[in-house]
């Protein structure tokens, strides 16, 4: 089928401001939007710049706004998003656009690093694995799925309003450790997250949950962190 991709283009070496460009390509309805973008890049205009790698929704490279919503281009099928044969594609919001669909991810990863995204356990390690009951393991299963694609954070109005807000992705990562029974730094992480730019800036907007390509219950995870802070109990 023929689809027209309306892409927001920006080349820092030439343009002062972003502008729209339309391309019509021939693709299968079951193709990914990523395939359509590749078709543009490979047979019409090689200057189109985007990040991608795995092409099946696991590496988190190709978050972009497709028809006004954050998605992974490799997880959106043409038939599902094309409206009257048109697909609009723009870079994600709230991070500086570097070129075309590529944004500067440095602030995003800085927030990620800020919440101590690693297991802390200062006990001498046992000879074999640390034991963890399947129930304790299940407690934080959902948030281990995060691929740091930034779909959530850049769909969050609170983040658009204030880029210093750590954002849902960082909180999801913090949740993954706070609720891991093997971790000993939950307290410190919770303290960081109770600072003015922590969880309290989340306004329970749910855009993050809707945008997450991994189906993580992001708002719920944030809510659980808030609850731990509210009650002083991590359960």
């Amino acid at each position: 089928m023929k689809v027209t991709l309306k892409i927001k283009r920006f080349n820092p070496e030439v343009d002062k401001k972003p502008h729209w460009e339309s391309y019509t390509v021939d693709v299968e309805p079951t193709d990914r939007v990523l395939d359509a973008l590749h078709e543009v890049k490979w047979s019409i205009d090689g200057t189109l710049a985007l990040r991608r790698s795995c092409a099946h929704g696991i590496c988190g490279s190709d978050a972009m706004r497709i028809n006004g919503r954050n998605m992974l281009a490799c997880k959106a099928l043409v038939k599902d998003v094309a409206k009257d044969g048109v697909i609009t594609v723009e870079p994600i919001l709230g991070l500086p656009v570097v070129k075309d669909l590529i944004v500067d991810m440095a602030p995003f990863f800085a927030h990620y690093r800020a919440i101590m995204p690693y297991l802390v356990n200062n006990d001498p390690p046992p000879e074999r694995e640390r034991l963890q009951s399947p129930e304790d393991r299940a407690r934080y299963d959902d948030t281990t799925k995060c691929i740091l694609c930034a779909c959530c954070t850049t769909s969050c109005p609170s983040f658009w309003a204030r880029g210093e807000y750590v954002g849902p992705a960082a909180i999801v990562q913090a949740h993954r450790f706070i609720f891991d029974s093997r971790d000993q730094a939950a307290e410190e992480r919770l303290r960081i997250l109770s600072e003015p730019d922590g969880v309290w800036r989340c306004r329970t907007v749910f855009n993050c949950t809707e945008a997450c390509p991994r189906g993580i219950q992001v708002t719920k995870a944030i809510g659980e962190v808030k609850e731990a802070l509210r009650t002083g109990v991590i359960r």
Partner: protein
Amino acid sequence: MLRPLVISFREGIAYRAKGNLLWLLHRISGLGIVVFLGFHIFGMSMAAFNPALHERALELYKTPPFAVGELILAFLLIFHAVNGTRIAILELRPQLWEKHEVATRLSLIITAALALPTLGIMAYKSISHFLGH
């Protein structure tokens, strides 16, 4: 410097999801009520300090532009109250987080159920007041 402000308002409308619209409206309604509340408290307190001013305030409320403003205020207050209640309940009751879509729909229905009759009666009262004179 105001880029975030611009983005959050422009995209708050453009981004294709419900959450940001509700967020924007909640914010605008909150701010709107705050501004009104300031004038309102000031006006009312004049009942104790300067009755003439108090009287003037009450007279002002009875002019047509204020009648329209009153309708807007009513909607904003009702929306803010219902939406705020939704947020507060969801945040204080973690078990409900997975049902947020239902909660959103419900809150919109309740807002409409409260706002429509309220606005209707108020509009009716205003119109009959202005026409009645």
